[in-house]
């Protein structure tokens, strides 16, 4: 009973972090809810203990005493005596999100915390939707920060914005190649580039693998960004710099992560779903995909000599791979 609940609680799952909630509070809330669910299970059967009691022997004279073994219930394992069965759970967190940012947040429970390291080492890209507001500049690039500057933005058009974004993407593509530490003259590098696998597998500054404008209605505009090794503050700074490139100013109104590696919005659990049952189901649903993707990402890295097999597809990368290919094609 108890172990059954706990045994299904090892693995990775994604939650949707709402804006305004600190990531640590979220992790603590999830842990509390899981513990609540686990402790609500059936308590163990009462333990018995053997006691030797002194009593008159049956059948013989009254004065003779003998010891008889009796099994009496013991309260040692009673939940009121030893407390709740579960007091701590290992809940780990994947790539963090700011307090103001929202979106997909990967958590690991139990043995799944090990997989979090694997996910980090896979250096997969993440998807964001970033909402910008033209005409203002603040000190922390957020809408509610201290106002620094106000500008006009009538001259801004969609084409100008797209040109800026293309320029950004091009420069970041060069940086991608540079930070991936590959010798481009080799055959392996060429094959990896064809498949869009070139990306740095160790620490690097924020790199944008793809950026495009989804919606433009001045003063508002909506960008979709695929990036890696980023922080949300850098994304807000990006919006600010886009404003500067457009010869106006811009602040960031919303940063929302829509994909983290292979976890998307569909599988993310909302606040009302942060309980034992839903999390167990989410872990089970995500488990096969997690195993497959991590093996793909990390498998070839272990064996550096072996060339990546030709039949190997990289669809899990999704838009970033297509963008990468486009980049390759574009150049």
């Amino acid at each position: 009973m108890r172990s059954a609940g706990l045994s299904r609680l090892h693995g990775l799952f994604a939650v949707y972090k709402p804006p305004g909630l600190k990531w640590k509070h979220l992790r603590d809330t999830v842990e509390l809810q899981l513990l609540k669910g686990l402790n609500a299970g059936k308590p163990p059967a009462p333990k018995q203990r053997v006691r030797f009691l002194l009593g008159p022997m049956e059948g013989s004279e009254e004065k003779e005493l003998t010891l008889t073994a009796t099994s009496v219930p013991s309260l040692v394992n009673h939940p009121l005596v030893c407390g709740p069965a579960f007091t701590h759970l290992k809940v780990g967190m994947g790539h963090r999100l700011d307090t103001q940012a929202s979106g997909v947040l990967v958590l690991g429970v139990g043995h799944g915390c090990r997989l979090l390291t694997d996910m980090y080492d896979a250096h997969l890209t993440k998807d964001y939707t970033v909402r910008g507001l033209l005409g203002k500049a603040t000190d922390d690039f957020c809408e509610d920060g201290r106002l620094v500057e106000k500008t006009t933005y009538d001259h801004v058009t969609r084409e100008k914005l797209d040109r800026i974004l293309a320029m950004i993407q091009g420069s970041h593509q060069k940086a991608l190649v540079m930070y991936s530490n590959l010798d481009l003259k080799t055959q392996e590098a060429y094959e990896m580039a064809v498949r869009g696998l070139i990306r740095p597998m160790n620490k690097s500054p924020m790199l944008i693998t793809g950026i495009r404008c989804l919606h433009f209605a001045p003063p508002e505009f909506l960008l979709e960004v695929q990036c890696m090794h980023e922080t949300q503050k850098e994304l807000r700074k990006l919006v600010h710099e886009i404003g500067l490139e457009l010869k106006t100013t811009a602040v960031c109104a919303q940063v929302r992560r829509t994909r983290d590696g292979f976890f998307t919005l569909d599988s993310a659990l909302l606040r009302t779903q942060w309980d034992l049952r839903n999390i167990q189901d989410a872990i089970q649903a995500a488990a096969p995909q997690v195993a497959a993707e991590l093996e793909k990402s990390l498998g070839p890295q272990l064996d550096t000599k072996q060339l990546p097999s030709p039949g190997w597809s990289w669809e899990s990368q999704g838009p970033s791979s297509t963008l990468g290919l486009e980049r390759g094609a574009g150049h």
Partner: protein
Amino acid sequence: MARLPVLPRWRRPQPAEAGTPGVTSHSGLIAGRRSRVWRPAKAGSGGKDRSERAGSRRRHRGLGQGAPPAVPTLSSWLRHLYALEKPSDSKSTGLQGSSEPEKAICGPWLTLFRARSPLSPHAARHMVSPTPAAAHVGRGARLRWAGQAEEPACGAAGRGVRPSESVGPGVTRYGAQASPQVKQELSQREDRGPGRSSGSGAPASRPRPKASRAFRFSQPSRRLRKMALSAQQIPRWFNSAKLRSLINAAQLTKCFTRPGRTLLHGFSAQPQISSDNCFLQWGFKTYKTSSLRNSSQSTSSSSQENNSTQSSLLPSMDEQSQKTQKIPSFDSELFLEELDELPPLSPMQPISEEEAIQIIADPPLPPASFTLRDYVDHSETLQKLVLLGVDLSKIEKHTEAANLLLRLDFEKDIKQMLLFLKDVGIEDNQLGAFLTKNHAIFSEDLENLKIRVAYLHSKNFSKADVAQMVRKAPFLLNFSVERLDNRLGFFQKELELSVKKTRDLVVRLPRLLTGSLEPVKENMKVYHLELGFKHNEIQHMITRIPKMLTANKRKLTETFDFVHNVMSIPHHIIVKFPQVFNTRLFKIKERHLFLTYLGRAQYDPAKPNYISLDKLVSIPDEIFCEEIAKASVQDFDKFLKTL
């Protein structure tokens, strides 16, 4: 003069109440905490701050009693030592500085030892010694002999359990340090025979804890062990038939504050705790006089309570013995007579089958523990409490409360309290939760509690009201009449409500009376000055939602900021629906943004499709989506993922 530490308010003594026994002073026997208790207060920090900061609930012993005196004097110490508890004080923690100690009982002992060494608190301890033979051993000088006499001493369940081996290794281990005098004595004792591990053949005794614990003892505790060795002689005397008859004949006094602890136990001292206390406990334990029983119990309990803050150890408690053998108490004269006459018994002596059967060789109870699990099977009190529904796992976190529960007897002490609580109106199934929260009520005096309930009745709180208040705020009855009066007066003045409305408010939220008053004052100012509500509006809101008085100031301002500035809801509508201040902000935000997205966010009563605030916040998600937003729950979820 050192400043007395300030106790938390609900534990301060109740001088105004009639009939309270004199629980004004500890004696100086909270020895282990002496250094902490009488340290001069740090400049600037009030006693209360320090106590609050340092979690003083655990520090301040003597629930409901006054602060200990500044300097422990021998007289106070001895008074405590010989104090006999009055029957009415059976509830308190037994550190009774009663003014009429039965000095006479220990008179002979005292004079005996007074002659030997000067009267100082420190030396007085050294005077305590179980036998005349060992008296000079215990006197004065710190003995360097350690040995692990404590463990094997006076605790063996049967005879011949760990005989000389206990002494042998002990001696050899620390032999180098033993003074020649001690060594001589030890050899004498060895000659007398093995089985020094005290066979108290009585079923009450328990084998000692393992020898490994000896290594943790500090030096003064070696003195204890030394004296414990000498004390081993005594329990053996009880094995003799002669003494048994004495025990049976002796009067069993009921004046012990700590029942259930028999003489014949080889008690573990609390070796891990401070040496001074160890010493005290051992010395006191070995006395067989009633006064010493008292003192040993009280000292051990007090010192245990003291030290339990540090080490959070519970004393050993073998309450099973309570059932089998009551604490014998007899006069010191009697004891003195027997002391010299009975020869020590040897484990090699043949015993009859009946006696052999009666030797109990259960595994020993741990002498000190962090949990009550170890004692629950051996303590009827604890078992009955568990059956009532009391959560022992929560109580064991408060060491003094756990100690108290171990010592209380269900029939004598706890039952009366339970009957009183039932009279007040708490149901059977609610008693467990109540006692879990307010375990300190056992140290309250029943008379005081009755007085407080009578006071509440006099203020026109009905019986059902009082029952509800006590249930919701378990600590209510720990407050003195004066304090309750002050608090009721405060609410009446501050809120300027009628008497009946104040009463209803307090009955609905009795933790207003038990909680701190500062947040209430602050919140009143926030509502008036920061949020801009008029006084009658505040009164209306408070009578509807009393919880607003104790709400978090930051959350209040954030909620109001969103509701008033973002949702553009004016004051007079917020006053009509004060439950917005009782809901989480994220709920209000999510629902408002969803309605805005759908174009249904209309909060003006004058216009059509008006959505009232209570419908916005107080109904569950499914009904909200269906009726108010006229959308499905899946749409709401999808929308939430776009925020």
